[in-house]
């Protein structure tokens, strides 16, 4: 079953076509990557899915519902959550507070209950806090809950961002370059972590990634974008052998000469 279907999605900025006629199907419980050179329209596509941009043409369907005119907050409530390429935590809030904000979509109490501290409110706050601590432990940041997000080391910030995204209990998680700026060891660890997310929690994962070791290592399916259009899709094996992909990455002419030497694996 497909959890997300993008049909013929097009997004223009003035004269520039950032995403053009894109079709993407995402099977429930899969890990799928979108790759492509800078400016290929990957993040734009994420922004279209989360409702931050309005799609000009085409349809995005999530879990049987059309997303096109839904607002960002509603889409998050429906079960899509994301992280950002350049980490966007609430820098001056503590780690726990960040996660608590993430839990927002499934907190139920009315604001006035907070004034009267109804039992329901107190219980919900207590549970939310416990849940936040649990998530913090889950991403390996136990004990750092009360430090400010901006004081955390880089890797921890990435993890906290994922924890915050998980707090909304998403069905689909969009990760925008989760290993950017990490060394090979950290990347490998993040890879295992992402895999576990899917295996433990059953969350479908769509990621944008530049590190080909990560992409080839965890993706079950890969879509390749260039200039807003999909130029290839398939399993990691198929993509590695696809001449158009190699051309997009290394330029015209490179495909024929280099393919044989297996350079494509490290593109």
């Amino acid at each position, binding site marked *: 079953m497909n959890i997300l279907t993008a049909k013929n999605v097009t997004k223009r900025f003035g004269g520039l076509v950032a995403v053009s006629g894109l079709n993407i199907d995402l099977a429930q419980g899969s890990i799928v990557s979108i790759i492509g050179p800078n400016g290929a329209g990957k993040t734009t596509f994420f922004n279209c899915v*989360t409702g*931050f941009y309005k799609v000009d043409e085409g349809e995005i369907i999530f879990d049987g519902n059309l997303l096109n005119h839904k*607002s*960002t*907050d509603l889409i*998050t*409530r429906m079960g899509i*959550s*994301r992280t*950002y390429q350049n980490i*966007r935590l*609430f*820098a*001056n*809030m*503590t780690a726990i*507070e960040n996660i*608590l*904000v*993430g839990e*927002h*979509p499934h*907190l139920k*109490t009315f*604001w006035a209950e*907070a*004034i*009267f*501290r109804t039992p329901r*409110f107190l219980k919900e*706050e207590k549970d*939310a806090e416990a849940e936040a601590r649990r998530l913090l432990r889950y991403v390996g940041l136990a004990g750092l809950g*009360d*430090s*400010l997000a*901006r*004081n955390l080391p880089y890797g921890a910030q990435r993890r906290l961002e994922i924890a*915050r995204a998980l707090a*909304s209990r998403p069905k689909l998680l969009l990760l925008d370059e989760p290993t950017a700026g990490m060394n090979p060891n950290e990347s490998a660890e993040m890879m295992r972590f992402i895999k576990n997310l899917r295996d433990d929690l059953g969350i479908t994962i769509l990621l944008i990634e530049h590190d080909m070791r990560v992409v080839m290592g965890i993706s079950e399916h890969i879509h390749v974008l260039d200039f807003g259009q999909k130029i290839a899709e398939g399993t990691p094996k198929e993509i590695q052998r696809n001449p158009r992909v190699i051309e997009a990455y290394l330029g015209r002419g490179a495909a024929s000469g280099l393919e044989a030497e297996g350079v494509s694996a490290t593109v």
Partner: protein
Amino acid sequence: MNPEKKFTLRDAVNQGLIAGLITSLISMVGMVELFSKRQLIANLMTTAQVFILLAPALLSYQSARKSAKNNALASGAVTGFFASIPIIVLVLLASAFDLRQFLVNVSPNLISTLTFGQGPVVGSLILVAINTLIGLLAAILHQLDEKIRNPILTGLLWTLLVGMFSEILQERLRAFFGISFTNLIIRSKALQPTVAVILLVGITAIAYFWGQRGASFSERIANQSATQRRNMIIAQRVAFFVLLLAMPLLLGTYLSEVVNNVGIYVLMGLGLNIVVGFAGLLDLGYVAFFAIGAYVMAILTSEGFLGVAQTSFWVALPVSVITAVAAGIFLGTPVLRMRGDYLAIVTLGFGEIIRIMANSDLLKPFIGGAQGVLQIPKPSFFGTSLIQPGQLYYVVLGGVLLAWFVSTRLSNSRLGRQWMAMREDEDVAEAMGINLVNTKLLAFAIGAGFSGLSGAIYASKLTSIFPHSFNLLISINVLSLIIVGGMGSLPGVVIGSLILVGLPELLREFAEFRLWMYGALLIVMMLAKPEGFWPSAITKRELHAHDESIPIEEPAAAD
């Protein structure tokens, strides 16, 4: 200032000249002359003299701080010396030409104040001597050990404050202890010199011993058991509430009136604090809701010809608040998509539109135009009309406590976190499932509600209202007090109101320079202490985001 840069003689001279220019400016705008009548210490020192010497003292202190240890004293003295130069130039110019036709406040009286009544030549020499001395003293003060310096500064500050407010103190002391005792301490609205010395020495000594013993004291508190500590906190709270309730008895009529005015602003400040401090939406048209609350109260209760219902205060009060809340939602809606400075300007526009409309002939049949609404009755409580400020105090207090309670509870809830997240990053907050429309409107609505409540009480306290009482300056006033106290901080609102509303009411001379001081305060606060005098934990983190020297901090306190 670059710490590695060497502080040279030139810098000391510059600091001095700047201090002198500041003093000259304070003199030329009329502050010095205005305060020349207010004595601090009987027949010895006036408030004006404090103003003259303040800038040289502060900047000499700075000079001493920045220069190398071995010539700190010299730097201070040099700064002090050169601080007198611009003042002397002003004095000489004013005695040679009639500057008064251009600069209205450069009067003979000012010149006589500046020269200590000794004529331009002798006066100039005295100025040089005193400024140099002050510079030297400031430098010496800086060289002292912190353990001694801080108590001295505390003593100086409190003695000055007591001196400034001696007029009110005199009235209170008379009420409690009689005239003869009061005359020993304060005569003709100024402290007796001996009392001033006793105060200075006494407070310094207390501060010194507190500094020595304070550490062990707080250690002892920390060592107490949880129940002991809890009991102490409860005892503190009870004492605090008893004090709050007994306030009008201690303060008397005049001071109660001042406290009520402060309370009206605290109430407004608590509302704007939700909008600006919690949600980060800079609203410059905030006075509009105050006006709406006041007008609804006025029209519903007025016994004059504009009154429509002659209802009681207690019926009109919720109606005023609800109307203000509705107005908050109504005016908040169109500006929901705006951020930062554009929002500020649009709300300012709204505020002005409402004021002009209230003033116009168009709405005159309903709300009286420039003539306002008259004959609003004071609130009554079980048949007693609350005429005395000391009685009205409880109404104001009730409003403030309610707003305080709601603010605290909300800031520690999901809604509080939503506001905080929205202030940090609106886009991400939305992507976390936060509905920005609702969250912002709630901030506008609750803020407007507090302001409407404040306006309603204000209207029945004054018994008549006019559109010109609801101008932009009120918005600026409330914004200033939030900033001075610390954005997002509830105690900060009270501190800010006491400083910005209470002080000028007590020192009537300030009235004319109120906005001048506000302007200066806003600039100085933003430059030197953007988190305010009583910062909330959050704002402090935010504004010091770039000093990365701060290690991982303790979790935020409860409020």
